């Protein structure tokens, strides 16, 4: 998507105009042909509008890996100042990582401030975004750097205590830019306690080594994680940079086995029912407690405790009918009857509504 200002050349590629021709594909030759055939026009349009439209192409599909939106622009925004905040509010859900590359020097401060607000808004909504100014002669270097930082497979080390081996993660984990970030194993978690953890992205681990005959930690880890029975298997909890993730071993048959790395969402507690990963301990620790971790507030949820909600008449009706049913079974269901009556009387005290209890008492007379 290319947008260049009118005073040099105005060029706008609107995906709404050419939807049949604009499809995601991996055919580089076809894409090169399309880029070479981009038509020039004198349209004055806004790059923010284009960003919002382009982001819609990446929205709505949770099955796939999060995508990237690269915007090449001269940085000019044509919206009136008063309408810009309203347009900015439309950026509530950027489904991908946003990269804005401004080509050439920025002539006015205003566009830079506007684009910076776009980046800030995207980051505030929990996604990654960046804004870079690129001179004309540095375009090639900038493009290569963008590719290496965001798209190229990441070569890093898997570290387990004093053991380490080289490996490649593909595709690259988002937000982990530093090549020096090794993936360190923090401990191991039984698979039966995880219960569908929400994952940000998944990556395949490919072992790398100069000497193909040397033993490799990734291979040993594959065998060790697959050896126990399925129900007793464990996953390795790892930390890369400031993000946590899981390493899981898979097998199709005896010859085909591999490791995958799943990256959690940012934060120390991506799984509330496991507690903070930064406070998990080994079995020999005195502070250890068994799974699952029950939040204090969990015991007070409305579905875990006897809750009386009388905001609608049929809910009052249900409670009264229940008390009436137990009253019919007296003296056998005496305990249940008193339990219901006490519950209703407590609710009457809370809502200052004694009429309900009076009605129940009158009938019982």
């Amino acid at each position, binding site marked *: 998507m290319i947008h260049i200002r009118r005073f040099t050349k105005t060029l706008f590629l609107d995906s709404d105009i050419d939807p049949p021709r604009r499809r995601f594909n991996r055919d580089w030759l076809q894409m090169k042909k399309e880029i070479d055939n981009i038509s020039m026009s004198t349209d004055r349009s806004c790059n923010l509008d284009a960003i919002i439209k382009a982001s819609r192409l990446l929205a709505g599909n*949770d099955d796939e890996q999060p995508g990237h939106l690269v915007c090449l622009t001269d940085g000019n925004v044509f919206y009136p100042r008063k309408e810009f905040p309203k347009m900015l509010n439309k950026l509530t859900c950027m489904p991908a990582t946003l990269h804005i590359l401004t080509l050439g020097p920025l002539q006015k401060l205003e566009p830079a401030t506007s684009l910076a607000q776009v980046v800030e808004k995207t980051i505030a909504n929990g996604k990654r975004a960046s804004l870079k100014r690129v001179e004309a002669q540095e375009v090639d270097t900038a493009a290569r750097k963008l590719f290496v930082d965001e798209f190229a497979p990441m070569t890093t080390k898997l570290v387990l205590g004093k053991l380490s081996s080289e490996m490649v993660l593909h595709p690259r984990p988002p937000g982990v830019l530093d090549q020096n970030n090794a993936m360190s194993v*923090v401990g191991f978690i039984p698979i039966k306690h995880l219960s569908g953890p929400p994952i940000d992205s998944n990556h395949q681990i490919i072992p790398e080594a100069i000497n193909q005959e040397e033993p490799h930690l990734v291979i040993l880890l594959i065998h060790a994680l697959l050896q126990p029975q399925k129900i007793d298997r*464990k996953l390795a909890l790892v930390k890369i940079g400031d993000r946590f993730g899981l390493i899981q071993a898979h097998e199709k048959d005896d010859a085909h086995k591999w490791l995958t790395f799943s990256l959690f969402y940012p934060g120390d507690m991506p799984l509330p029912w496991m507690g903070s990963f930064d406070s998990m301990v080994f079995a020999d620790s005195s502070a250890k407690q068994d799974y699952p971790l029950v939040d204090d507030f969990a015991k007070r949820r409305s579905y875990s405790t006897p*809750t009386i*909600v*009388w905001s609608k008449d049929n809910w009052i009706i249900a409670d009264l009918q229940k008390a009436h049913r137990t009253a019919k079974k007296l003296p056998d269901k005496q305990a249940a009857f008193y339990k219901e009556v006490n519950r209703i009387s407590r609710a009457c005290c*809370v809502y200052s509504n004694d009429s309900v209890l009076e009605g129940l008492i009158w009938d019982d007379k």
Partner: protein
Amino acid sequence: MSSISSKTVIVIDKSYYMCRRVQHALNVDSIVRGNVDEGYVQKSPTVYQSALQSLTEYCRIVWDIFGSERRFLFKTFYKNRTKTISNWNNQGMDYLRDTLRRSAQNSPNAKDIDASQQIPKYTHLKNVIEDSLKDLAAKSQKEEVEKKSETGRILVFTYATEENLEVQSNQWRKDLTSSIEKINANARTNGLVELDRVEIVIIDIKNEKVINTDLKILADEKLFKLEVTHVEAGGSENGKEWQLTDRVVDLATQHHRLMRTMISGIPMKEEQTSGGGGSVNYEVPFLHPQLGKSTEMVDLRWNTPKIDASQLRACCSAVRISPLEVNSRHSDCLTKYLSNGRRSVLLSCKDKVTHMLACNGGDIYLHKLSTPFTPQEPPSLENAPGGFRHDYRVNDLVSLINKHTLYPSQTGATGAVAANKAALEQFTRVFPLVNSESALYSMSGTQSVDKILQIVPKSTLSETEQFELRAAAQDLIEKELKKEPIPWSSGSLGGKPPKKDEQYKILWSELKILFEAHIDNSPAHKAITDTIFAARGRPDEPKEVAMEVDVPEIDKDQNFNTEEVPSKSIFDCFLEMDSKKPKRPRFYGQVMGRDKVQLYPFLGGESDQVDNMRKDGSDNIENKKTLDAVNKKLMKNNMPPKIDHGPVDPRSRAQRRDDTVQRRGDADNVQRRGDVQDIQRRGDQAEGRNFNQDPRQMHRNIREKWK
């Protein structure tokens, strides 16, 4: 910057106007007795009671989903005075119920009509909102807190006597702006956090039908947004519409960005008494935050509760839920089913399994499933570096994994990641990946080596562990002295194993590396390392004398046998044990000599009778008494039992050693049997086997013969 939904002030009007009863009463009698016409007991709640019930519902939904992340502060206002009845620290439905119960003592009173009418409603509300703004403003210093500004929401449940609150929107704008600016100026002076953006909603509750219940914006400024909505308290005439409750639930959905989802097709068994014996499908609606990237509402269908716990489901998002009708039977049934057994249920949308309901840690979560990440062409292990090897120390790594399994912490103290990494580093200081080309790790599986590998990496050594280490080292020294072979493995690379002496040199050098890597763990580690390697001596001259091992003290008065006990081999020990065992009669086939029990000695051939007597002597068994008497006499006289063809005890036949048993009528078989026995006897003599002599001597003879 904090979220605008993180703090909410709820204000409840307690003026006279809130005493008014709702329009449509609840016929308790019809419920209890079933008489619709005779409305003997008709009770209408007041507007105040309806307000309490609806705000409780608002708080319940928010607390179910967000817990203590979303905080509420409750205030009441009466006679132009606002009173705070709770605090920011205590949250939860139980606390709210206690708070409302305590404040129920000062419910709106019909006698207070004069006091309520003295001050215009607009003034009341303005004062209330200004007080609430002060409660929202933080009292923390800017440097102490991370956030740069404070924000929040104010909900006012009131009965606005003036119908035209909307007309006064300019007045609202002016007054509220100046109030917020005053508060911020004060905050700037005192170095406190300023107010940034506040949302104010006035819920005007009527006791009559309201046609237009939409939310109207009275002012939308940079610092605040003011909205008002008019709703009717209680139910509508047809009993199907509850404007106040629906509006409050909508506000909760809008303010906290919730979505409504329905689960249908839930099979629940009806009670027998209600006439239905089978299961009926129910629907349960609930609220939850946005799940994943999609904001589209979905209807989910019950799929299956049978989920394999060993399979990790790929999910992209998981959020807590709050049942919309928590009181209803089917909603209660579903939540109890999930939370009591900590079960998980798969849900499908358009015939595809897309979601999962699971109880995790007491909370019910809705998970959105994603497509599992599987490569189109799974990689082959053999093509990977080191993938073709089969000598990995898998069992050792499995035991390391089991020792370093993570658990939640009771204290919740952070910083455990660094400690856990340090613990892993300690146990992997010396940890070869393979056991080939190694003496020490080739022997893993033996007791002594396993003990060493398990105990040495520990942080501290108890006395028992030190004793075990010394015993394990002693065992290795003895093995070296006896030159026992080490199960050397060359792995997949092949190659000839080194000589035994060389293997033990490698073993001790590897042990030295292991011990020295952990020598700084504790003083006990250093001491045990010095002890073991001092006792072992030089690698090329292992000491033959056994290392001193701590043994319990012996009683000095006890007499010991001072005779020299010759050294014994293990074979001698087994022989000795064998000789001590009582001799048991052996089966015919086991014994090579003549000393054996004969079950059916004369059975064989065409006839089992000789001289009108049964070959197996069973006829004589029937005359047991007679036979016993005869044999007794013979034994008295030191004579062998009678072996004549007369009445002979067949049991004694088994003990006969007479080689000249003559059996008439079966001479061929007897001869054949005698020939076989002769051959066997000759064979025994040739081999040196004589089962009549001491077994130890017999085995020595055999060994000498075969030397």
